[in-house]
């Protein structure tokens, strides 16, 4: 058991993967000597060399496109997109190639490529540095989409993502990079696609992933003081979804609130709400409610506390749910 920050946990997970399998590569902008702008790849180039930890030219389409080529040659590249808002130049390679090439080959090809994306707001950054683009990828068949929320999961999940023979979009909650927790590096961890009930409760099921898990846990603690018992589920995997865990909880509580940073409109919460309503229709005492960003571009940082779901907005939505 060792205490690690979330960023260090991913660093250790990457290191383990690089050690275990000589085909694993790390690539991206500034991932080498600098160790990444968040230091997630700190020290890896020094220990594994420039051929395995590759500082690339400044072009995201190039990063994913060449990673695909490396995967075709038998490598397992882990690409870093420096910030969430810079994944869009790579959208074509991710959506038309990475996601679709294995099917195109009728299974002859596998593309074990991991795309790491530090995501979300709350760090006072300038434009394009606080986006939550998960819905663009959950809607894209052929990709797996996961999001870690804490150091222990981060350590395991990054290794599982690398071991997966499918392409994985791997979201890292950047404002939680510095959160520390105990990590048991020997523990096998849950399967990559499993959700986890991180706090049990009776009244409302709270669904979150990535940075909002912590917010929901805090909300649950605050709610307890008001005599409300919130169950918090960390989805961990967005595509595929662990529907059994979710449905089981919602059927029990009869109420569900989804929390994410991305705009609510056609965000991932929409899928959760639609799906849960269909499978739990007779159990629901209230519609599945969503708390998230507004249908605007991410605002300047002095406004982000209003844009991002916080304790108050989450609890307000819990109230609305309970009022039905």
């Amino acid at each position, binding site marked *: 058991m060792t205490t690690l920050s979330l960023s260090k946990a991913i660093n250790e997970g990457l290191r383990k993967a690089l050690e275990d399998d000589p085909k694993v590569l790390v690539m991206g902008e500034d991932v080498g000597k600098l160790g990444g702008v968040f230091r997630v790849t700190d020290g890896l180039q020094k220990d594994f060399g420039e*051929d395995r930890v590759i500082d*690339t*030219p400044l*072009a995201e*389409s*190039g990063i*994913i*496109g*060449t*990673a*695909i*080529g*490396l*995967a*075709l*040659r*038998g*490598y397992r590249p882990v690409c870093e997109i420096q910030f969430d808002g810079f994944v869009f*130049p790579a959208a*074509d*390679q991710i959506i*038309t*190639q990475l996601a*679709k*090439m*294995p*099917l*195109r*080959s*009728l*299974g*002859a*090809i*596998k593309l074990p490529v991991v795309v790491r994306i530090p995501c979300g707001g709350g760090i006072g950054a300038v434009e394009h540095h606080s986006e939550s683009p998960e819905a663009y990828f959950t809607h894209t*068949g*052929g990709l*797996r989409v996961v999001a870690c929320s804490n150091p222990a999961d981060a350590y395991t999940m990054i290794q599982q993502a690398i071991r*997966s*023979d*499918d392409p994985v979009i791997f979201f890292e909650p950047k404002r939680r990079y510095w959160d520390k927790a105990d990590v048991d590096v020997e523990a096998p961890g849950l399967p990559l*696609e499993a959700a986890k009930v991180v706090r049990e409760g009776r009244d409302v099921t709270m669904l979150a992933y990535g940075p909002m898990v912590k917010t929901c846990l805090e909300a649950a603690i605050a709610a307890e003081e008001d005599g409300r018992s919130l169950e918090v589920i960390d989805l961990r995997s967005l*595509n*595929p*979804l*662990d*529907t059994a865990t979710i449905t089981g909880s919602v059927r029990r509580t009869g109420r569900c609130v989804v929390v994410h940073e991305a705009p609510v409109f056609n965000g991932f919460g929409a899928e959760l709400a639609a799906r849960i309503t269909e499978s739990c229709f007779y159990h629901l005492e209230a519609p599945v409610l969503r708390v998230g960003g507004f249908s605007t571009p991410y605002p300047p940082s002095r406004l982000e506390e209003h844009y991002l779901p916080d304790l108050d907005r989450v609890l307000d939505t819990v109230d609305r749910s309970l009022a039905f």
Partner: protein
Amino acid sequence: MTIDASRGPQAAPPELVQLLTPEGERVEHPDYPLELTQDEVRGLYRDLTLVRRFDLEAVALQRQGELGIWASLLGQEAAQIGSGRALTDTDMAFPTYREHGVAWCRGVDPVKLLGLFRGVNHGGWDPAEHNFHLYTIVIGSQTLHAVGYAMGVQRDDAEAATIVYFGDGATSQGDVNEAFIWASVFNAPVVFFCQNNQWAISEPLEKQTRIPLYRRASGFGFPGVRVDGNDVLACLAVTRQALANARDGQGPTLIEAYTYRMGAHTTTDDPTRYRVASELEAWKLKDPIERLKAYMFKNRLADQEFFDAIDSEADTLARDMRKRCLEMPDPDPMAIFDHVYRDRHLLLEEERDQFAAYLSTFEGEGR
């Protein structure tokens, strides 16, 4: 505006590497010596003829409704066979959707190419089996895959080159230019083979560049060369050298094969809307097969009997291909869910089960 004025059919642009004139004269080029045995020359003729025949049959199959669409290589046989035959077994090729001739050189069963045009799959051969990647439709994407692959070859310390095909239109895509950058920065063992067939659907070359395309390479710090794309010998020699350089650690080369798309862009296109017949007529005089045949005749490398035999082999190939095309079964509806993921995927399993249940309600109704 400085426009490349060298599109006129008569004058071979001065920078063009040529080993065989349109009239079938063998000419020498100081940088590209080429010695071929009689059998090798015959082999090239056979390749050219068979792929043209195969291609014509595919067009016919499309006309008869057996294929949804077809992208003909007519006119580009020499560029494809010349470059394709320059490859060694361990070299890897990344095609667009028009490289039927290269596929032939890599030993891919021609019928396999029909699948995606017939609509029974999106590709479906194993790239590793023939070192020939899947067809790529999104213009330019494959150039980055090729460079990445070549970077893998570097890391394997292997003696192999990678070649990637793309069109004149593709040179405008960001991805292709990023591929140039990657290749040059990492000195990747890759050959960029651009078939400049003068057209990107209805757009002439001037919409993509105002200087000859091979010069693009100079902006990225690696060599570019323009070869007569209707001259199979020149294409072979130039590609061979570029591949050898790549294997040799000398990094990338851009080859512009200067040729012409004799047919429509695809079977759904109507080129009479945008180009004049005289252009076509002029290019007919440069036909890659006629030129090789003239050369072979003049130099007694083959007699009529040989040519007849090839023609009949071509007919057999076409017949066989037609037959096997018609036999190609429609995929099972449940195949929609196959090969999307390799590891288990619960969402897809759920959708598959629901769809299977839905389909079963039609049982006996013949849906």
